[in-house]
C-alpha cells in the first residue's frame, strides 16, 4: 500500500500538473503534492510500519516472469524519506525562481520523483530497470529545457552515459533471469541464484558500469560536473541529492548480494577506482572557482568513499553507507539551496567575484557554515556517524591488510582535502573585502530560511541522535552482509 502510494501520488499529481496553466497554481499544487508524499512516507515509517502495509505485489508481464513487486525495506525507508523530504524543500527554497512554462517544469519534477521512488522500492529486476530509466527521462528534459548556456551538450552527454550503463545492466538482468530455475525477475530468485564463480565476473561488470556511471565513480564521472553545472539548481538538487543514491542502492541491493564472489574478487579494483576518484575530485575541487563545480566534485569524493565502504563488505560499512546516503542527501541539498540563493541574488557563482558576504547576510552565513561543516562530517553533525562507520569498515575490509591500510589512508586524505576546499570556499564567500558584486547584498528570504531551518534541524537531530537511523537499517544490513558471505565458496576452491 505505502510503496504504491509513494509512486502513484507523485506520478498522478505530476500528470495533472501538465494541465495547470497558471504558474502560481502549478507551483502551489506541486508543493502540496510533495507534502502529501512526505506524509505518506512518514506514515510508512511510523504508524503503518509492518509488512502488510510496506509491501505490495500485483501481476505484470507475467509471461516472462516479472511482476509488479514493491516493498519498502530499511534502506528503502531512508531513501524514500529522503526523496519525500527533498522535494518540498526544493519547491520551497526555489519559490521565487522563475521558470518558463512552469507547469511543465513542476510536472517533470514530480514525474522524476515517482521514478526515484520506484527505483527505491522495486523488488523485481525488470521493474527496477523500468523505474531506473523512468527517473532519467524527466531529468533529461528538465536539464535540457531550463538549464544554463551549455545545457544541450551537457545533458546529451549525461543521457548517453547513463543509457550506456543501463543497457548493459539490462543485458545482465536478462542473463540472470535466464539462469534462474523458474525464469523469474524477482529479487529473491536473484538472491538464490548462486551463479558459478566463472560467470559472475562479467555479469558483475555489466551491472557495475551502470551503477558506477550513476554514482559516479572515477573514471565514469565525466558527465557529472557538466550536468550539475548546467542544470537548473532545482534539478541539480535532485540529481546530486537523490539520484546518485540510485547507483549506491543498486550496488547494495542488486549487486553485492547477487554476485558475492565477483564482488569480493573485484573489490580491490573498485576500491582503487573509488580512492583515485576521492583524491582526484578533491584536488580539482580545491582549484575550482565555480561554486557549483566545486560542490559537484566534492560530491564525487563523498560518493567515492561510500562506494569504498560498500566493497569493504562488512556490516559497519553497509550500515554507514545507508545512513550516509540519507545524510549526504540532506547536506548537499542544503548546499545547493545556498548556491541557488547566491546565484540568483548576485548573478555569479565565481568565488573570485564574491567576498565579505558575512557582513551583509549574517543569517545566510550561519546557515551556510553549518551545512558546509556538516558536509565535511564534523562531530555533532549528521554525517559524522556515517563517516565514522565507513572508516571503521575500511580498516577491516575484506582484503589484504596492507591494502586496507592504504585505502584508509588515502580516503582519510580525502577528508583533509574536503576541509581545505570547504573552509576555503567559506572564507572566499563570506569573509574578506566586499566586492562590487556583494556590496549591495541582501540576506536570504523567508522561504529560504524555512527550508534551511528544516535542514539545520535535521543536521543536528541526526548528529546528536544517529541511533534513529541506525535502528532502521540494522536488520537489513546484517541480512545483506550474510548473503555476501562467500567463505563456503572459498573453502571449495
Amino acid at each position: 500500500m505505502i510503496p504504491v502510494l509513494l509512486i502513484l501520488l507523485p506520478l498522478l499529481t505530476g500528470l495533472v500538473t501538465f494541465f495547470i496553466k497558471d504558474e502560481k497554481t502549478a507551483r502551489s499544487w506541486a508543493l502540496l503534492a510533495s507534502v502529501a508524499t512526505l506524509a505518506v512516507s512518514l506514515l510508512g515509517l511510523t504508524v503503518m510500519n509492518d509488512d502488510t502495509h510496506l509491501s505490495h505485489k500485483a501481476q505484470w508481464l507475467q509471461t516472462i516472469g516479472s511482476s509488479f513487486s514493491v516493498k519498502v525495506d530499511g534502506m528503502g525507508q531512508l531513501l524514500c524519506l529522503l526523496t519525500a523530504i527533498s522535494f518540498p524543500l526544493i519547491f520551497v527554497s526555489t519559490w521565487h525562481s522563475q521558470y518558463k512554462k512552469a507547469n511543465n517544469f513542476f510536472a517533470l519534477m514530480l514525474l522524476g520523483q515517482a521514478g526515484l521512488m520506484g527505483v527505491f522500492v522495486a523488488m523485481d529486476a525488470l521493474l527496477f530497470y523500468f523505474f531506473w530509466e523512468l527517473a532519467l527521462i524527466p531529468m533529461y528534459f528538465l536539464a535540457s529545457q531550463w538549464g544554463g548556456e551549455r545545457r544541450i551538450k551537457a545533458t546529451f552527454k549525461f543521457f548517453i552515459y547513463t543509457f550506456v550503463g543501463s543497457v548493459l545492466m539490462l543485458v545482465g538482468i536478462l542473463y540472470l533471469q535466464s539462469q534462474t530455475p523458474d525464469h523469474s525477475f524477482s529479487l529473491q530468485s536473484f538472491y538464490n541464484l548462486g551463479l558459478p564463480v566463472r560467470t559472475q565476473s562479467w555479469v558483475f561488470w555489466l551491472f557495475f558500469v551502470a551503477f558506477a556511471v550513476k554514482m559516479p565513480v572515477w573514471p565514469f564521472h565525466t558527465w557529472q560536473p557538466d550536468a550539475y553545472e548546467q542544470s537548473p539548481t532545482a534539478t541539480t538538487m535532485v540529481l546530486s541529492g537523490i539520484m546518485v543514491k540510485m547507483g549506491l542502492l543498486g550496488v547494495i541491493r542488486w549487486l553485492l548480494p547477487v554476485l558475492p564472489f565477483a564482488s569480493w574478487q573485484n573489490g580491490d579494483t573498485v576500491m582503487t577506482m573509488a580512492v583515485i576518484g576521492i583524491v582526484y575530485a578533491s584536488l580539482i575541487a580545491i582549484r575550482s572557482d565555480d561554486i557549483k563545480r566545486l560542490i559537484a566534485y566534492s560530491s564525487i569524493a563523498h560518493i567515492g568513499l561510500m562506494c569504498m565502504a560498500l566493497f569493504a563488505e562488512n556490516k559497519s560499512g553497509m550500515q554507514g553507507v545507508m545512513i550516509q546516503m540519507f545524510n549526504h542527501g540532506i547536506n548537499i541539498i542544503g548546499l545547493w539551496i545556498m548556491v541557488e540563493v547566491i546565484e540568483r541574488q548576485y548573478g555569479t557563482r565565481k568565488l573570485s567575484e564574491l567576498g565579505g558576504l558575512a557582513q551583509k547576510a549574517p543569517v545566510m552565513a550561519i546557515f551556510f557554515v553549518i551545512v558546509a561543516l556538516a558536509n565535511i562530517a564534523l562531530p555533532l553533525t549528521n554525517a559524522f556517524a556515517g563517516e565514522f562507520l565507513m572508516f571503521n569498515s575500511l580498516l577491516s575490509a575484506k582484503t589484504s591488510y596492507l591494502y586496507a591500510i592504504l585505502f584508509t589512508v588515502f580516503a582519510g586524505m580525502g577528508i583533509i582535502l574536503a576541509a581545505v576546499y570547504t573552509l576555503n570556499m567559506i572564507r572566499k564567500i563570506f569573509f574578506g573585502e566586499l566586492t562590487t558584486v556583494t556590496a549591495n547584498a541582501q540576506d536570504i528570504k523567508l522561504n529560504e530560511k524555512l527550508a534551511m531551518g528544516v535542514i539545520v534541524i535535521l543536521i543536528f537531530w541526526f548528529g546528536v541522535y544517529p541511533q534513529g537511523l541506525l535502528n532502521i537499517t540494522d536488520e537489513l544490513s546484517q541480512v545483506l552482509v550474510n548473503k555476501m558471505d562467500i567463505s563456503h565458496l572459498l573453502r571449495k576452491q
Partner: protein
Amino acid sequence: MNEFLTLMKSELLVTAIIFLLLFIKISKGLKNESLLPLVQVLLLVNFVLGFFFNSEGSLFGDMFTTSSLIAFQKSILNLAVYLISLLCAGWLKKTQHLAEFFLLMLSALLGMFLMISSDNLLIFYLSLELATIPVAAMANFDLDKKRSSEGAMKMILSSAFSSGILLFGISLLYGATGTVSFNELPGLLDGSPLQILAFIFLFTAFAFKLSIVPFHLWTADVYEGSPIAVTAFLSVVSKGAVAFIFMSTLYKVFQPMLDTWYILLVILAVATMLTGNLFALRQQNIKRFLAFSSIAQVGFILAGISSNDKIGTSAVVYFVLIYVFSNLAAFGVAAVISGQTGKENIDDYKGLYKTNPFLGWILALALFSLAGVPPTAGFFGKLFLLTAAGSTAAYWFITVAALNMIISLYYYLRVVRAVFMDKNEQPIEKIEISPSVKMALIICGAGIVLLGLLSWVFEHIESLQ
C-alpha cells in the same frame, strides 16, 4: 459458402472497398474533400470488423489458411493503413488522384493479406507480387518530382530482381521435393545441398523485401524519393506483413533446416542492426534517417525470430504492433511538417518545440520508443525480442544487440536534441494541425505510452497461438 465468407472476411472487405472506390471513380467522382473522409470511415469500419466473426480453417485445397493469430496480424496492418490515411491527410488532399492512390494502397494491402494467409508457395508468390507492384506505382505519386520517379524505378527494378530470385528458389524447391504446399514441404526437407540452395534463394527474396543487409541498398533512396504516405506504408505495413510471413515460413516450412537458417539469421541480424545504425548516424534528411533506423529495427526483428519459439512469434507480432505506433508517429510529424513547409532536413527541426510543442512532444515520444527507452512501449517491444532471443542465443549476440540500442539512442537523441534546442534563425513556423491528424497523432502517442504498460496486450497475443 458461409465458411468462405468468414475465413476470407478480411480479404473480402478490402476487395469491397476497392470496388466501391472504383465505382465512385468511374461514375462521377467525388472531390478530395469528401472522398478522403469517406475512405477514412471505410478503413475504420474495416479495422473494427477485423475483430469480429473470426474463424480458423483453410480454403482452396489448403492454399489459403487463417487463424486467430493471422487475423490479429491483419488487424495490425488494417490499423496501420487507417492511421496512414489520417496522418497524411494534408498531402492526400492535395494529390490529383486520391481515388487511385487508395486503390493501389488497398490492392497492396489485399496482396499482403493473401500473402500472410498463403499456405502454398504459388499463392505466396502471386500475392507477394500483388503486394509489391502497386507500391512501386505509389512511390511514383509525386508526379512532378524527379526523385519520386527515381525511387519508383529503383523499387520496381529491385523487386523484379528479387521476385526473379524467389521464383528460381521456388522452382528449385519444387524440383527437389515435388511439392509447393507448406504442409507437405517440411516432411520432405532433409537439408541436401540443392534444398539449401533453394532455401537461400527464398531467403534472399525475403531479405530484399525486409531490407536485410546486404539487400538493403534500395531502401534509403526509395524512402527518400517517395511521398511520405508511401514511405510510411513501405516501412510499416509492407515490412510488417513480410516479417509475419517470413517468420511463419521459417517456423513452419523450414523447421527441419533450423541449423542452416539459425546461423544465417544471427549473422544477418547483427549486420543489419550495425549497418542500419551506422548509416543512420550521418543522415540529414528525416526520411533517409527513418529509412536507416527502420533497417536497424529489422535487425531486432530478426533477433526475435531467431528464437524459434512460441515466445518469438508473440514477441515479433507485439514488436510490429508497437513499431506501427512509433514509426507512424514519427512519420506523421514528418508528414505534417513536410506538407506545410516542405522542410525535410533534421537541421530544420531545430527549435520545433518552441513553435509547435505538440509536434515536438509526439516526435520525442516516437523517437524514444524507437530507441527502446522505458517507459515507452518500444522498450517492451525490444525487451521481449531480446528475452526471446536470449532463450536460445549466445549472450554475445544479446550484448551486441544491446550495444546497438546505444548507438541508435545516440542518433535518435540527436533529433530530439534538435527539436528541443531553441537556437534557430528560421524555425518552422506555427503549424495548424487539422483535427483528424491531431487525433491520429494522439492515438499513436497513447499507443506508445500504454501498449507497454498494459501487459495483457502481450498476453493476448500469446494466447492467440
